[in-house]
């Protein structure tokens, strides 16, 4: 998966590295701002009310 991605990123190693870093950041942002907030209410960690 990652090998395939690395092979398909264009440019020299430095450029590949930069692009890979951007991709990682994009995925992390997607998780933090979209996926986790959606997922959170269904997970049994922090429900605080009685009743």
């Amino acid at each position, binding site marked *: *998966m990652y090998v395939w991605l690395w092979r398909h990123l264009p440019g020299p190693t430095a450029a590949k590295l930069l692009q890979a870093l951007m991709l990682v950041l994009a995925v992390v942002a997607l998780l933090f701002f979209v996926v*986790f907030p959606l997922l959170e209410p269904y997970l049994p960690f922090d429900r605080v009310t*009685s009743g």
Partner: protein
Amino acid sequence: MSVDHRETGGDRVEIDRVRPPGRFRDTVRTVIRGVGQLLITLGVVVLLFVVYEVYVTDLFGGQKQASATEAIDRVWASAEVTATVVVTDPSKLVTDPRERTPKYKTLTGEGFAKLYVPAFGADYRFTVVEGTNSDDLYIGPGHYAGTQMPGQQGNFAVAGHRVSKGSPFNDLGLLASCDAIVVETQDDWFVYRVLPMAEEVASWTSTPRPDCAGVGVQTGAYAGVFGREITVPSDYAQVLPVPHVDTTAVPRGAKRMITLTTCHPQFSDTERMIIHGVLVKSYAKAPGFLPPELGTG
């Protein structure tokens, strides 16, 4: 087994002849590597979720709390009457809670009071919003709709996150009996104090410490209400006017209670931690006046 396998080399030749050696091994390698990478990735995602829950939501919650506080400060500033005489003597500002009725309105998701716990430090201050759904609680501690307002007879009940989203109620487990919980509204200061703990009841004297004035072992309808209780999530009676008594009606002569709820144990929500306190004092707000309880705890 492996030794046997090596000795019967003929079998291997047989297999090699059936499938082209390079391709088969490449496929196996690719599949195994793919599964491995997927598992590592999932592990990293789970770790990221922990980072999100414990740190990132604190940042978001902090921003929401700050803007809620800004909003309530604006409302209070516009409602403030300019005093002609500056009164800062606490004894002159003491009020009878029976004569104080809330003159403010509450809107779900908006702040209407501030909560102080001097035992957690002078900077412990949260704006309490109306409502207890997840959006409300992201902003700060939330008032159970339908429970009483600060200072009123009955129960002023507030829920708050223990871990994540500002973690307002992370330290409720550290509260001791007689610790002050101070609530500020538009016109009033209400000083509540935590009730005796279950294990202290047997040896409780009328006032074990000077700051315990007005705090005592609960009797009658209130018997069995303690400073801290660990209970099941479905125990809604904890936030009713008389805790544990299953009615929403406020009986004549009801006490003025405060109840704080959060999840328990930390990082889990299989149980609830409940803190009960009783109103011991109230002050009218005045410019430049802070209740002495805020300093001493």
